[in-house]
């Protein structure tokens, strides 16, 4: 294909669209609420209200109604329906769906352009971080002194679960969502994703799932912890049904997104873009997508079983019916550990990309870096039971799972070698992305080393279930992944907006968040060492000082994140103009104009070498 949709348009204004002209985020919510009400109303009358399962049946039907309504309202079914009745979309209509000449309105619609989807993911990630962040502040405020003062225990117990799940969702999409959609297709020389409509579908499905998740707080909460262990969640109210439905829907979204991403990388690469010339970020997102495709269906099954236990009295997890909570724990962690790498690998891959550009030096050990990411994702599928070392399940497997878990430190070590090796002897450009990258290196060491303690079973029998674990994975998720995500945002921000992210505010934000992380989670390690369990709404006087420091640190993180938000908003509107290639980088996304035109390239690019040829001879085609 050498002509773009734009060039084949028969008029300046696309004439197509039809029903889609009247559909957007607002109509999706309206339709979702209406069908949720219909589901609620029908279920109340359809099912026998004397049954123990009645409220769960009603809640599940309500959530299902919301989902279907949201899909109809946003326009997800328009094109498939037309195809089904033999009246397929015209060129003009496809152009309309791609958001052609619709200004800002296209960001609130079922738009197929991958760049619009990328921006929608930025907004979604920031919204989720805001919700999760507010909950985090409420949690830390409750824990500032012993006793329960600020929120009561029941509310606190819900907050920790929703904080956990919202933040996990936010971080799963934080890098792979915005940049896997906005820059990845351009990086491989494609005009869009392989399945543009599925791209919009996965984004909006995730948005509707996020609404469902937050609604849990309004329907009785989820006072069970985010791992929703079988026995305790059996006691939870309809909030648990909404949570389980959220996960079912979320899995649909990640599956669709992963298939789309993998297909794009395999089939849509431009001429000369061989696999050993692929930018490392593309490798990272593709490996992540493969891992997500493997991991999340376990979550789907885990929560589907829970829905069935609750609505139709199966007993997968109910001990009195012959079931076992260990089944839920196994399914959950079969997803739960690979998920950590679904979150981590895109951030690391983005930092690899950034390190080469900022050091003005080729990426160090490109192929070893790919090998490490592949090894890491492969191993991550074989370590899940280390989350169950102290559960009492299969003690004989403790040794084998300890081996697989600790072997992971070898590919993880490669990440440091690649990053430090690339920067070493470079001409390091100390801009915002570089600064956040150094923060990542610092925090990831702390998170990584403390992980080795937890993989050692005799030591895990002391530290499991304590604040030490919480501190460990927050050093990974906040200290490492969030730092990587912010570096990626600062790096690709000029491509999205044509402007730099404000350097001065960005630096204030960096130092606040960096210091805040050390205080909050550094002190949290000490709380854990002293023996403070996780998920406690109150604690004894022994943990007073370390908790106080953690709370102050959390407020400092919040201040830093608010400054970053301010920097994003002001820079987006009137930041310093950057031009199309502000970092003088070689990969394809920097060679197209900013703003990037619809379908990206006027002519398909031809690739002759990888994008890391700093200081090397140019290969002419």
């Amino acid at each position: 294909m050498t002509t773009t949709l734009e060039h084949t348009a028969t008029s300046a204004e696309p004439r197509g669209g039809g029903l889609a002209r009247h559909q957007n985020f607002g109509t999706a919510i309206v339709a979702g609420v209406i069908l949720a009400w219909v589901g609620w109303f029908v279920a109340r009358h359809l099912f026998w209200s004397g049954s123990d399962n009645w409220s769960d049946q009603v809640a599940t039907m309500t959530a299902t109604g919301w989902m279907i309504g949201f899909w109809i309202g946003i326009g997800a079914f328009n094109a498939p329906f037309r195809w089904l009745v033999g009246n397929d979309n015209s060129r003009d209509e496809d152009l309309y769906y791609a958001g052609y000449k619709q200004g800002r309105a296209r960001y609130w619609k079922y738009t197929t352009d991958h760049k619009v989807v990328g921006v929608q993911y930025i907004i979604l990630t920031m919204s989720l971080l805001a919700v999760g962040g507010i909950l985090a502040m409420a949690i830390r405020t409750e824990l500032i002194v012993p006793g329960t003062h600020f929120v009561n225990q029941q509310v606190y117990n819900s907050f920790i679960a929703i904080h956990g799940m919202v933040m996990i969702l936010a971080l799963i999409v934080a890098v792979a969502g915005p940049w896997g959609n906005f820059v990845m297709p351009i990086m491989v020389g494609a005009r869009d994703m392989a399945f543009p409509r599925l791209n919009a579908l996965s984004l909006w499905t995730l948005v509707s799932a996020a609404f469902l998740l937050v609604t849990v707080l309004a329907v009785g909460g989820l006072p069970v912890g985010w791992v929703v262990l079988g026995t305790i969640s059996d006691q939870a109210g309809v909030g648990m049904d909404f949570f389980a439905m959220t996960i079912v829907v979320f899995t649909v979204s990640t599956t669709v997104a992963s298939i789309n991403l993998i297909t794009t990388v395999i089939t849509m690469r431009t001429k000369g873009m061989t696999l050993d010339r692929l930018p490392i970020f593309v490798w990272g997102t593709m490996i992540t997508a493969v891992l997500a495709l493997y991991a999340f269906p376990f979550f789907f099954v885990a929560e589907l079983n829970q829905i069935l236990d609750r609505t139709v009295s199966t007993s997968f997890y109910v001990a009195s019916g012959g079931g076992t909570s260990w089944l839920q724990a196994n399914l959950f962690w079969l997803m739960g550990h690979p998920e950590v790498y679904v979150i981590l690998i895109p951030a690391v891959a983005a930092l690899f990309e950034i390190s080469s550009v900022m050091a003005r030096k080729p990426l160090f050990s490109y192929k070893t870096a790919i090998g490490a990411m592949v090894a890491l994702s492969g191993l991550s599928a074989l370590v899940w039971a280390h989350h169950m070392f102290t559960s009492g399940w299969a003690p004989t497997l403790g040794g084998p799972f300890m081996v697989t878990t600790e072997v992971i430190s070898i590919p993880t070590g490669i990440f440091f070698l690649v990053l430090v090796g690339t920067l070493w002897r470079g001409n390091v450009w100390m801009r915002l992305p570089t600064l956040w990258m150094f923060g990542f290196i610092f925090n990831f060491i702390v998170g990584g080393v403390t992980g080795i303690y937890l993989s050692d079973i005799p030591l895990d029998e002391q530290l499991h279930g304590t604040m030490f674990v919480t501190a460990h994975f927050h050093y990974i998720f906040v200290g490492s992944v969030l730092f990587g995500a912010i570096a990626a945002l600062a790096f690709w921000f000029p491509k999205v907006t044509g402007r730099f992210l404000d350097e001065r505010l960005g630096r204030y934000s960096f130092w606040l968040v960096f210091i805040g992380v050390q205080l909050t989670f550094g002190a949290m390690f000490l709380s854990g060492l002293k023996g403070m369990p996780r998920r406690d709404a109150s604690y004894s006087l022994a943990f007073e000082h370390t908790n106080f420091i953690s709370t102050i640190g959390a407020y400092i993180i919040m201040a830093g994140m608010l400054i970053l938000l301010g920097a994003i908003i002001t820079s987006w509107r009137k930041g310093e103009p950057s031009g199309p290639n502000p970092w003088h980088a070689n990969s394809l996304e920097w060679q197209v104009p900013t703003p990037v035109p619809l379908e990206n390239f006027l002519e398909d690019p031809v690739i002759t070498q990888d994008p890391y040829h700093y200081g090397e001879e140019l290969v002419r085609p």
Partner: protein
Amino acid sequence: MATSSTKRSLTRFYWAWGILTVVGVVLSIWLPHRYVPRMMSNDGNLSLTTMILFSVLAAPVASGVYAAALHIMHADRYRGEGVPPAAEPIRENTKLLVTWLTVSAVLTVFVLVWGLGALAAENSTSGNPLVVDVTGQQWVWTFAYPGTHVVSNELYVPDNREVEFRVTSLDVTHGFWVVNFGVQVDANPGVITTIHTTPDKLGTIEVRCEQFCGLNHAFMDAIGHVVTPSQFSAWLSSQPQGA
């Protein structure tokens, strides 16, 4: 080539590495001693030793990465205006890669051998343990001593004798954790899980729930005592022979 490949001084890098390693080793020994509660069993002592050993091993590795990062920030930072020129293109360094892989593999194998050895030691049993039946329910622990009719909410165990906890739950999953013994296992409804350890110091111990179990999870604690064998027999016979 924008930069020459002349040998540059790494003195500052080695100094930083050395100083950070010393600081790391000091922290590795001091922090656990300062913050971990008093360990009163063989497993508890092993946990503390393992924690210190792993920290000491990690100190030079982490310090090496930190020293390299600091060195880059100092020596490789571009101080000019505008876009920095390209640096010398170094794509591979087989010697470094092999060294790095060897060191991380050796460390991993050491950590594994140590851990598997400790695990085997922890799993070995004397054959004549004192059995304590532990029952968790929302939100209280109960300890029963088979062979007697003693049921208590406080845990009493004699020192220098292996004790086996047989743990179960009446409702949801709880986490039975004897903080000062360094052992824990989940209390699952309908299942009995076991864990054993040998107390080696007299004094008060704390039992906590480490698996989220609902409203009052934060308050599901119990007090315990490690006493001499004669005190233990005296306590057993002083208890009401109820239940």
